């Protein structure tokens, strides 16, 4: 799980151009479509899909503030590296 931080993935900074990585992942099975992440994303990265689930529409705008993941009541949003979140501690993996 522990990956090296890729360039341009520091919290609060937009990723560099050409950096191809899906920063945000949404698990459709867990998403209940409440729309909180879509409404409160400061950069309008997410959009509501026709299936009433959140979709990542503009990943390039993401500034990695992690507010969507924190405010998701269903634990359905993941950001693909651990930077900016609580430090991952060794021996914590189970």
């Amino acid at each position: 799980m522990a990956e090296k931080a890729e360039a341009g993935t520091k919290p609060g900074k937009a990723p560099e151009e050409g950096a191809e990585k899906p920063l945000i992942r949404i698990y459709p099975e867990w998403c209940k479509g409440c729309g909180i992440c879509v409404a409160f994303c400061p950069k309008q990265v997410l959009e509501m899909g026709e299936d009433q689930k959140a979709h990542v529409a503009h990943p390039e705008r993401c500034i990695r503030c992690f507010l969507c993941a924190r405010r998701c009541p269903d634990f359905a949003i993941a950001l693909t590296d651990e930077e900016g979140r609580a430090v991952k501690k060794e021996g914590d993996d189970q």
Partner: protein
Amino acid sequence: MMAVHLPYEHKYLRHKKKFPHVWCPGCGIGILMGSIIRAIIDLDWKKDDVVVSSGIGCTSRMPVYLDFNTLHTTHGRALAFSTGVKLANPTLKVITVMGDGDALAIGGNHIIHTARRNMDMTAIVVNNNNYGMTGGQFSPTTPEGARTSTTPYGMMEPNFDVCDLMSGAGATFVARGTVYHVMELDRIFKRAMEKKGFSVVEVLSPCPTSFGRANNQADPVDMMESLRDDTVTVKQATKMKQQDLEGKILRGIFRDVDVPEYLDRYEELCQRARERLEMNQ
């Protein structure tokens, strides 16, 4: 295709068995559950050292999903069970999660006496203004004038201010947060859990399905926005005029005092009793 990275909170969830959870779309309980997990991660507590207990209600489903030592107990009596756990093994960190009805109506007696006794525990009171699980009846925290399924013409009784009540009853740490201000909530939970003494955190959480639908706020986003617009921090409130503060709910830490803790006093009492016994022999 990149490997899917689970959010780090998932390590503390029973995510293989019980998810997706039962809470309605837009319910705030999931958000504060994440907050509790992040506070515990931040404090570096081991899973086996933490006990989460709860009573009955929407909030009280939380121990089902959390991978700690968990206890799902009778309605309103979660704090009584927690007291027992803490007395039996004082090294455990005991967190009690309760809904507003669970904590203040059914368990009202337990919560004031637990606060008075001041045992080193954390109580989290999730205030969604009604009894969500049973169909949105009014609870002791339903604001005056709000409609619920049992108050179709508006609530006529005044409501409890949980923080004032708990300060009066003697809790050593009293704070209020909302699920909209989630970063602040993480910090409040951390402070509350660290505190040696009985700490109470009231968390304002939306209930779009029951309370929201009865009050023209069926959209979870509307409810989150009203949490944002209708609350001010204690610090902001000191700079605001009296008329601007009308209708606003204060959030932040209201009380943080150091009072001798129950288990310390109990140990001291045991010591005194032993000495007396030795003297008499």
